[in-house]
């Protein structure tokens, strides 16, 4: 054994010891601190990654290994307990392999198929994603769908066997949904539900409004009151949640997705509409102090930035000046 091989071998011994430590149900903060110090030595992290990859490989094939090692297929009480523990869904990616928790409580049951059995009653843990503070965030979901969250948006995702459920708690998000007719993709925003029929769409949800824009494919919006609305590509539905009135119009859908590139696009929009849109992003709200300015119209592109920065852009385009107050920034006609 060369000196180098010997070093690697020692690092692997230590890595295995740490891995065995962290597999324990009794781990202290001091263990994590010690591990951190150990990781700082060159070569140790790589050794630990190797042990971890080996463990992941065992986990990936746990069902097959278990069956092969216990060819009788009988379920002993210990086995049933073990299966309950193993199949408790920890995360979404594990959850599809689970679903046996209920079945395992029965004294005898068929050995799980190697691909994983999914029962519709499975309790699948939701994963929440948020785009905190500044900037947007793109999340690739386990089913291959992609969600881009605008700043401040938060979603909860439950990828179940029978359906994919996403809840948009608030804010704006753009969805590229992986097509899977067997598992409909249902997005809930407030009291409304958007059912994806294979598509790319943008949703802006706030207390007083819901705006759904379809770029590709087709979605169905199930309203809290009234008939569902089907939107093909190129159409936008604006729901006024206060008046409970929905308006569908033809739009250039790219404009609704422009925020992903940090831009907002307006076509002949009134200043009050522009300000309303900017307020979705502004930390400090922007207010129109007089009625005259509200009717001013604008076509063009604004860059999403801080409240002050966006107000500066408005001042450049409109004959208005701003006054920064404690609570808000007010705009007046010059």
């Amino acid at each position, binding site marked *: 054994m060369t000196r180098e091989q010997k070093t690697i071998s020692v690092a*692997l*011994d230590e*890595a*295995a*010891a740490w*891995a*065995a430590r*962290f*597999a*324990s*149900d*009794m*781990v*202290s*903060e001091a*263990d*994590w601190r010690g591990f*951190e110090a150990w*990781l*700082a030595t060159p070569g140790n*992290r790589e050794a630990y990654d*190797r*042990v*971890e990859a*080996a*463990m*992941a*490989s*065992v*986990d*990936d*094939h*746990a069902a097959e*290994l*278990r069956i*092969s*090692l216990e060819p009788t297929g009988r379920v002993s009480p*210990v086995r049933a*307990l*073990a*299966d309950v*523990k*193993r199949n408790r869904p*920890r*995360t979404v*990616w594990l959850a599809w392999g689970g679903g046996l928790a209920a079945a395992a409580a029965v004294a005898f049951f068929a050995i799980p198929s190697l691909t994983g059995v999914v029962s519709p009653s499975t309790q699948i843990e939701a994963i*929440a*994603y*948020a785009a905190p503070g500044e900037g947007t965030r793109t999340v*690739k979901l*386990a089913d*291959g769908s992609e969600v881009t969250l605008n700043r*401040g*948006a*938060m979603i909860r995702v439950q990828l179940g066997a029978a359906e994919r459920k996403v809840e948009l*708690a*608030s*804010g704006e998000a753009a969805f590229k949904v*992986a*097509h899977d007719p067997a598992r409909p993709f249902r997005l809930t925003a407030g009291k409304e539900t958007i059912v994806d029929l294979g598509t790319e769409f943008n949703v802006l949800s706030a207390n007083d409004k819901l705006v759904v824009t379809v770029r590709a494919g087709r979605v169905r919006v199930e309203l809290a009151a009234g008939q569902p609305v089907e939107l093909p590509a190129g159409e936008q539905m604006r729901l006024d949640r206060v008046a409970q009135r929905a308006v569908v119009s033809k739009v250039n859908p790219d404009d609704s997705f422009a925020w992903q590139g940090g831009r907002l696009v307006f076509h002949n929009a009134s200043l009050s509409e522009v300000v309303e849109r900017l307020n979705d992003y502004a930390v400090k709200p922007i207010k129109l102090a007089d009625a005259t300015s509200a009717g001013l119209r604008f076509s063009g592109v604004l860059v999403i930035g801080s409240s002050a920065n966006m107000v500066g852009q408005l001042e450049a385009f409109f004959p208005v000046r701003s006054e920064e107050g404690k609570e808000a920034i007010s705009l007046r006609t010059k």
Partner: protein
Amino acid sequence: MALDESEQSPLMRLYMEKRRDLVRFFTLRTSSASDAEDIVQEIWIRLHGIGDVENPAAFLYRTGTNLMLDRARSSRRSRARDDSYHMVNQVRGAGANEDETGEPSPEQTLEGRQRVARLMQLIKAMPEQRQRVFVMHKLKGLSYGEVAESLGISRSAVEKHMMAALRQIAELRE
């Protein structure tokens, strides 16, 4: 979404205190400062609705480690999917636009079978007690405490058997 500051649990307050430690740890662990930031941010999201836990500081590290492993796993999955997709496209020529199904390719399945076979061989060749501990903990999901009780040995003996088993498995090349 605005978080209600008044509803912060003790665990969340501890998180605030340990945030920098966690970022430092995961930066070292993943060798990426931005991955570390993402992981530590996700820990925060997971803390909502979690009540008292035993050893809360270790719980924070554990949660982050699980998140890190989830990320690694899903990127392995999507890489595998991309690979199989590209392979399909190469075989069928450009213009094939079948949906990605996420099914493993025949090659991957074969590789998987070989890996299972090698793992099986290795586990079967383990000393008896080591094998018992490994199967009970790693394959059946019993905790160290449960394994120790059922085999009538100490927790630290369980840990030593696990260490030896993991050391052996790490020798298996991908």
